[in-house]
């Protein structure tokens, strides 16, 4: 094979290597720009990913929905339709395997169990990456909060658009978690 052919092949691969991360950015920016923002009540804990560093795992209060359907099994992808409750927090309207013809926004979740007419699921935006020195403090801060009555004051800010969701921030007592731990 000639050098020029290899070089052209390399150019294609190089473009793909740029295109894939760029595409990731494009999608996320699209959601942040024109998506609807929801607040999800959450509790954070802190694990590590070997390549991407420290993050906190978020466990959401929204994790189940009562529906008498045994066809939902572990690992299924479902659409969770949302609306805001009276306090401004997200709540589930409906879950479905197919796209429904309703106006509400939806996010895609994974079924983790189906027990006594309740479907349990995991919301996709469960990782929030933090500076490595702050992740542990963030978890501690949350632990402290959990002991008093301020529990309702931790929530995740999530932008939703066409089933895509981007976790923008985690808020404790009205301020972003990074700033909260610095206090």
């Amino acid at each position, binding site marked *: 094979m000639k*050098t020029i052919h*290899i*070089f052209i*092949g*390399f*150019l294609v*691969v*190089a473009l*793909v*290597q*740029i295109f*894939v*991360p760029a595409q*990731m*950015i494009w999608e*996320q920016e699209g959601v942040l720009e024109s998506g609807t923002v929801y607040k999800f009540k959450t509790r954070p804990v802190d694990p590590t*990913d*070997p*390549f*991407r*560093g*420290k*993050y906190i795992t978020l466990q959401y209060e929204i994790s189940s929905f009562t529906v008498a359907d045994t066809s939902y099994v572990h*690992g299924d992808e479902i659409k969770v339709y949302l609306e805001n409750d009276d306090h401004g927090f997200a709540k589930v309207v409906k879950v479905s395997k197919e796209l429904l013809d309703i106006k509400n926004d939806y996010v895609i979740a*994974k079924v983790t169990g189906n027990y006594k007419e309740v479907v349990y699921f995991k919301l*996709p*935006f*469960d*990782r*929030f*990456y*933090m*500076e*490595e020195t*702050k992740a542990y403090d963030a978890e501690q801060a949350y632990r402290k909060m959990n002991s008093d009555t301020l529990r309702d004051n931790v929530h995740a800010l999530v932008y939703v658009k066409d089933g895509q969701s*981007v*976790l*923008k921030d985690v808020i404790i007592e009205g301020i972003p978690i*990074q700033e909260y731990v610095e206090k």
Partner: protein
Amino acid sequence: MSSKFNKELQTLVRDKVISPELADKIEQYYATKDVGKPNRLFAIFGVFGALLVGAGIILMLAHNWDDFSRATKTILAFVPLLIGQLIAGYAILKEKSNAWKEASGTFLFFAVGACIALISQIYNIPGELGSYLLTWIVLCLPLIYLLRSHAVTLLIIILSTYYAVEVGLWNYRSRQTPWLYFVFLLGVIPYYWMLLKRNVSSNAVTIFNWILPGSIAIALSAFVGRDGTLGFIMYITLFGLLYNIGRLLIFKELRTLRNGYLIIGSLGTVICLLIFTFKWVWDELPGTSDYGSQSWYIALILFVIAIAMVGFKIWKNGIKAINLFQVAFIGFWVVYFAFSDIGVLPVVLMNMLVLTLGISAIKIGADKFNFGILNYGLLIISVLIACRFFDTAMSFVIRGILFVLVGAGFFVTNYIMLKRQQKIKKQLKDLQV
């Protein structure tokens, strides 16, 4: 040229083995031979440098700098990637030496990983480690062929193994079978084959001869389902297959230590079979295995390939070309599926199989004058006997006598072989004189 070699030449001249003219000629030959050859050390250090810098960038980015804005972080993500691409592109276009290509490929490999890692951090993109590794591997696999880089190939194999184990074994929340591992392996094999064809005894081939069977043996654990027994069958069959690959004609000229297939296959077979020489292992076996499961089909496919290789060898070179290690897995299949319910029979048969393997290794070692293989055979028998000490009620006297006998066996066989070797050497010397 190394000074050691020069000194050796001078000694030869002094001892009148070769003439001074010949020594000069030899010196000149090697001097001109080395001229066009790029420095191998340079390539190795280049790769190590790129490896460290690349890994360092990933680690630094994993800090998740809060103080930078989203835009700054995004630019930071693309800077190493673009630098890596520029250098690699330049190396291809200007037809630079291998050292360039290896080093730039290694750097680019890590730059791609760092870039997608940082993007996931910035936008908190969900997804397990497995999906991240998958994207990384797919984006870098073509570099193997474009840069013809051993280092990138090695990194891809290691990352694929990591991917398989991460997705199929470690991820307790949602285990999946990492079928894509096979696709990645198929992506690497043509490159490996090219190297094999070029020079089977090169150091690069030796590394792949070890890393490929090692990777496959580790990754297979990700394909074992919940049925552990079938896992054993899968592994014994895989080791049989690896051993048979190691005995392929293409590896014939290779020294044993350079043949990872042979050694991993042989050791794996012996260890698995040794486990099944214990009676309690057979007692604990579940009555029936799930013969519709994925583990079963994988075991069956491995078995068919291994049998085909044995069959081909017999058809080509006759039954005598086969040694017992190549067919030990068939013995296990027969015992497991035909006799596993019949009292102690499977245990007795397994013990006999391992004993015969040991004896056949001793025989191969003696025939080839290879002390390594000879003692390997003796070692198999000793371990077998040691294992029997745990689950038989022999008296201490008999156990003691057995140990003394095996120990004496080590001395005697090695001594006889040493004598025979010396005798042959002496005969050769006499012939020369």
